[in-house]
């Protein structure tokens, strides 16, 4: 089996996780910038985090033979403070040329507030000005439907944005159709306690599409499973999926999206 982990917060994982992922067939990991579990006190904290994502973490992954890519932003959970967000967004352009940076993400909404919307629009503008791919986080639980609608409105209203260059992550049964119908890519996140189980993810693949869709573990410092993608591949096999279709969803689909950034190259 070979697969891409298109969304993993590796700075909060152990070297055992790297070993397990590579052993399971992981060919590359992509790490979006996210919330640390606490609010950073200044833009300097983000500067250091961006250095970690673009310098230190790729070196750590390389020790296990795993190519590591990253996405940069200030995440929606820290976007209520527009002044801080403005400072952080101002830091990003100087990191965009780093060899492992794929685009702007994971941007989006958390509680669907006006300030979060403002910061989302600033990120979308940044991505448009620098011709970057976009990775979007949709809110959790009861906030997901509304947040997904608002996010789609923001992206569609900026005429510079091409939907095929944006992935809307953490879709579930009530949002996947909205995302795919609007021409965007959809990401399914496999979490043990919320978001999506392997069985539901395979149901959605059967019901909606094998195109413009990927799966990720979004493994982080919370309850999450770094091997969720290969485990879901086992679920596909249990249902009698042909090996080529499994390979398409867990390997070729993410490569198709990510290769729109010329820096995404596998050895």
């Amino acid at each position: 089996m070979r697969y891409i982990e298109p969304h993993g917060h590796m700075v909060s994982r152990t070297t055992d996780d790297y070993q397990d992922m590579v052993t399971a067939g992981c060919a590359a990991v992509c790490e979006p910038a996210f919330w640390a579990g606490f609010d950073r006190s200044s833009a300097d904290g983000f500067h250091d985090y961006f250095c970690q994502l673009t310098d230190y973490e790729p070196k750590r992954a390389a020790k296990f033979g795993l190519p590591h890519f990253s996405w940069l932003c200030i995440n929606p959970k820290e976007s209520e403070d527009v002044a801080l967000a403005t400072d952080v967004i101002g830091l990003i352009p100087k990191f965009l040329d780093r060899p492992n940076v794929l685009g702007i993400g994971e941007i989006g909404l958390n509680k669907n507030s006006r300030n979060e919307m403002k910061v989302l629009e600033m990120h979308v503008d940044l991505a448009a000005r620098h011709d970057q791919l976009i990775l979007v986080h949709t809110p959790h639980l009861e906030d997901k439907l509304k947040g997904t609608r608002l996010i789609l409105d923001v992206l569609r209203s900026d005429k510079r944005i091409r939907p095929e260059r944006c992935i809307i992550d953490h879709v579930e049964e009530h949002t996947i159709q909205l995302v795919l119908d609007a021409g965007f890519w959809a990401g399914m996140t496999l979490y043990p306690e919320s978001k999506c189980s392997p069985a539901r993810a395979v149901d959605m693949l059967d019901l909606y599409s094998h195109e413009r869709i990927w799966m990720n573990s979004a493994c982080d410092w919370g309850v999450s499973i770094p091997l969720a993608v290969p485990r879901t591949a086992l679920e596909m096999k249990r249902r009698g999926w042909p090996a080529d279709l499994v390979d398409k969803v867990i390997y070729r689909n993410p490569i198709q999206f990510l290769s729109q950034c010329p820096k995404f190259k596998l050895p």
Partner: protein
Amino acid sequence: MTRQQVLDQYFVDARHKLIDLAAFLDRVDRSEGEADFRIAAFRTALKHLAEKKPHRAKRVLLSFSDPTTKPLAKATVKGATGAWPGKN
């Protein structure tokens, strides 16, 4: 997969999850004090399970969702509770 294959593969797991739900509702009933909007939302969502039409998972998710369309004036918390309280 045939219906028999689906049952063979998923029935015991689904049964296990259903009994967990039943035990959860018993636990809520046994406990003291006031409940909140979450248990009402849960009972509403449960009704979708008994419906004999497709997309039950989608309807359960929709029934827990905030249906409004205007952004909040301000985010005062970071977390989500899992059900919409009926107002923002």
